[in-house]
């Protein structure tokens, strides 16, 4: 019996796994912003400012993932 050969791109599999963390992270950040705005609408501006900084850092991981998925041969 021939062994089963699985072909495909390991890079894309790795990238798919890597989107788990940043996906949850970004959703968590903006969920906190929504909750905080519901409790205290006046604080929305300051919260959104911090939210964007946090979003940029968390999404950097996702972007590193997609970039390295193409770069590493």
């Amino acid at each position, binding site marked *: 019996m021939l062994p089963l050969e699985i072909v495909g791109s390991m890079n894309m599999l790795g990238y798919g796994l890597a989107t788990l963390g940043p996906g949850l992270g970004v959703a968590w950040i903006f969920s906190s912003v929504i909750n905080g705005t519901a409790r205290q609408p006046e604080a929305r501006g300051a919260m*959104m400012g911090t939210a964007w900084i946090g979003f*940029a850092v968390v999404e950097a991981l996702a972007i590193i993932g997609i970039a390295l998925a193409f*770069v590493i041969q």
Partner: protein
Amino acid sequence: MPGLVGLLIPLEWAVCLGDGAEHAAFPPGVSSFCSRALLPGVLPTWVNNHLIQAIIGAAVVIAFWLWMAHAQKVVPGRKQFVGEYLYNVLRNTIARDILGHDYRKFLPYLVALFSFILVNNLFGEFVLFMFPTFSKIGYAYALALMSFILYNAAGIAKSGFFGYLKKSTLPAGVPKALWVLIIPLEFLSNFIVRPITLALRLFANLFAGHLVVLVFVVGGTLLLESGQVFLIAAGGVSLIFSFAIFALEIFVGVLQAYIFTVLTAQYVSSALAEEH
């Protein structure tokens, strides 16, 4: 590492300059994004169809804002009302909320940045071009470079060169033992990761979106030509569903323009922030 060039010019050089004139339309892939030289004998090869698209986008943005700013009265007419409404949305939600009291210096750049990215993203769904300009990596890196220069120049103008480096790599209250760990990490995060992620975020979103559009439209067309009943039905459904994908692409285009501008404003604000 030869693959690292892929970070700068992902996938394109190998495919587009490799075969020359042969770019297969199916299956949709990186070769669908290659540029054509406009007038091969007359103009240099770097004058391609996407460059003309970007220039037309810039001309549209300039013409639009000049037209909106022209002949303003105290009691606004309809055109002035629309122009002021759009300007207010950008000024209030992006510049004033994030930059605080010295937002006026940066407002023209932010308005121009948002308008340029938005117009070029919407070219992906516009009949004449049907190609988003920022799915070519060079345009995204150019804008990221401008934003990089802007937020660093703002920080250096405010705190001096070494003061700005100290402020951005060394948060307040860090014990001396951790300096050797914190400084390279903060330097990497502020000066290397920020511009690269600004560019790659815009590029990857637009590239992936256009690829999805191509899969639905090209795949649907090929299914329609196949000759079997079920495949023709599948092709029809695919082409009809591609309109939903266009709507998604419009939304992603607007959102990515907004995020790029908001992050640029945020980086400028962080560079100008006072120590607590």
